[in-house]
């Protein structure tokens, strides 16, 4: 808990300037991987294990929530891992959830890894399903399998990935177990070698037609938005914070046809602040 005590500015970057994490990468920007998960699932352990000392910390722009990014290289390609705040859902009830949701929605990560606790898979799957509603490129990292074993719990990751339609990898990040498999899967999902087809419960017909009707309107309001379907869904559902974000123009600002518009916004905001 106290590990995150002291703000560690990365050694080679000047304080108060955003770390342009791609600086050191061989291949330009590299791939962006979002790391989501419930609190206490060992998400940070996974993050630390994958990125080692190549980490940069700062704050999410405009928020007092700390943000960690790190890089790793696999088979010559650079990957940037963005550690999202630990949340139980993406219903945007708190700042943390809002940040996680906005990044998955608008940060356009090349893939999202959801870390789940093997000892309480059922509760953790809610977040996985919510992420799958937003994006196809999802990997489930079933962490803490060592602890689950101790408690006599076994998770069949093959069955899980068959049922979810996205890859599931068992890990014990504390001991480095399963991490190479995880990295391989990340690379595979990003370059398309591994196909992901999220299986979600089909909505009732009435809901589907209602969503179909609203999607073009969402697209008209937010030209270039990628997840219009998801936004339409939430709006019909009556997601209050999401409505607020639309009215305040927060969403419009985040959406852009340029890739990684959020990243650009982050950079601009930091440059202005610095």
């Amino acid at each position: 808990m106290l590990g995150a005590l002291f703000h560690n500015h990365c050694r080679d970057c000047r304080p108060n300037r955003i770390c342009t994490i791609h600086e050191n990468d061989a291949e330009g920007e590299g791939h962006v991987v979002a790391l989501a998960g419930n609190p206490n699932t060992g998400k940070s352990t996974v993050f630390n294990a994958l990125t080692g000392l190549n980490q940069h910390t700062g704050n999410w722009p405009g928020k007092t929530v700390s943000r960690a990014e790190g890089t790793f290289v696999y088979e010559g390609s650079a990957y940037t891992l963005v550690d999202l705040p630990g949340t139980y859902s993406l219903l945007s009830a708190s700042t943390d959830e809002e940040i996680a949701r906005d990044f998955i929605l608008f940060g356009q990560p090349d893939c999202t890894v959801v870390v789940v606790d093997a000892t309480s898979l059922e509760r953790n799957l809610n977040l996985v399903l919510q992420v799958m509603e937003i994006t196809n490129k999802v990997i489930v990292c079933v962490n803490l399998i060592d602890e689950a074993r101790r408690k006599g719990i076994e998770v069949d990751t093959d069955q899980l990935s068959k049922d979810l339609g996205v890859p599931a990898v068992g890990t014990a990040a504390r001991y480095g177990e399963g991490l190479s498999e995880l990295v391989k899967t990340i690379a595979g999902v990003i370059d398309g070698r591994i196909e992901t087809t999220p299986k979600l419960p089909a909505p009732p017909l009435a809901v589907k037609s209602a969503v179909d009707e609203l999607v073009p309107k969402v697209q008209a309001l937010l030209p270039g938005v990628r997840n219009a379907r998801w936004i339409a869904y939430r709006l019909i559902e009556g997601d209050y914070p999401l409505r607020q974000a639309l009215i305040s123009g927060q969403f419009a600002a985040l959406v852009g046809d340029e890739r990684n518009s959020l990243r650009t916004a982050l950079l601009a905001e930091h440059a202005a602040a610095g």
Partner: protein
Amino acid sequence: MNVSTTPMPERPSAAGLLQQADALRETVGGERFRDELVAELYRHAEKIAARSVRKRKPRGWFADEKIDRILTHPVLGIPVMAALLAIVFWLTIAGANVPSSFLAGLLMTDGGLTDAFRAYFDINAPAMLSASLYQLLHELFGVLQAPYWLSGFLVDGVYLGLAWVVSVMLPPMAIFFPLFTLLEDLGYLPRVAFNLDWLFKRAGAHGKQALTMMMGFGCNAAGVIACRVIDSPREKLIAILTNTFVPCNGRFPTLIAVASLFVAGAVAKPGTFAASLIGTATVVGVVVLGVATTLIVSWALSRTVLRGEPSVFILELPPYRRPSVARVIYTSLIDRTVFVLYRACVVAAPAGGIIWLMANFQLGSASIADQVSGFLDLFGRLLGLDGVILLAFIIAIPANEIVLPTALMLYMHQSRMVEVQGTMLSSVLTDHGWTVVTAACLMLFSLMHNPCGTTIWTIWSETRSVRWTVFGALMPLAIAILVCAFVANFVRLFSIVSAGSAL
């Protein structure tokens, strides 16, 4: 010519979109729709989990629930917690004395390591070990024929400042931090928060403040940053403003040193088991008092300037994890011990120099140090302290770690002591009129006074309010002054009364 009358395309607006969404919601079941969607998601998760999870009976009796039943027991929880803390402090106090003497011998006392070996192991070490680094440095400067002020500033000032900090602070830190990190790594701290959470709610504060307070034990600046987890601005402010009432890593060694070197030694024979128990009880008492002060001040704030109802939250108890020893050692030694020591040294080195200058430059009839501490003395005595201790607290504003070393250096300059004697620590203090009351008031003052410079700066950067920052610095100071004045004068009154009745 007719103007074409094709309808203008509807300009998209957020309000229009929301209106349409609201209308569509009615077609799919209205407000119930959302609950149904959530329920559907949960059912789906349940179905998938059931298909891929297999459970056997857990091996052995070592189940988290059983441990939690004791550790978070409504009645037993708090005594167990106090006992665990007591064990940690006892190990620290009992273990820190020996290495402290050896470090002092190596770095500065007259008999060098030889004395330490003789005192603790009854071994006659070779004579070459009988000189301390401090003496060697003096000789070196003598050989180089360095001017008086240079050797004074560098050796008696800067070097001695560092040596004091290292020998007084390093051993307790090197024992305390790994033990504390171990508790943390086991997952015990959230349980502590769980045990205390109802108390915070009773005080009108947020239950999560129990967590941010626990962080404060590590470092108040970090504790203040941790207050970000509290969503309500009112409760967040309460948590930020009261964080300084629990002793941080920088103040723990001060408390432990005063408790073990002075309080324990004054009551029982130094170095005995009884002495270490008394020292432990003292530190535990100070910690409990710190928590109590946090609660009382939170209560007072939520009844006055920050009025409101506490909000509800869910605290999840993470499972117990087997601590990874390498990580514990790394975090506690590198992240904490070295970090805190480094911070202390960075402040102690210039402070040592400044103290030497203050002690050796005359202002009128006395040195600057004497003038300032003399000026502060009356006020200090009112608080059960003295001018030197107050001056030490002022010099130590950048880092609370150096309060005790600073006070010791000031005393030594005051009594024109040039040589540092072994086992002199407590005798220097008694020579300068220290009693158990002085020690108690110093610990109280250290516990309650204004936060250190870093924490004050952090309060500002978290609240962005000069008003709250000033309040966060002065309110604890006022409380510390009031409490110390009360204790000191209550004891004085009591001793006058009892002396009177003895006549």
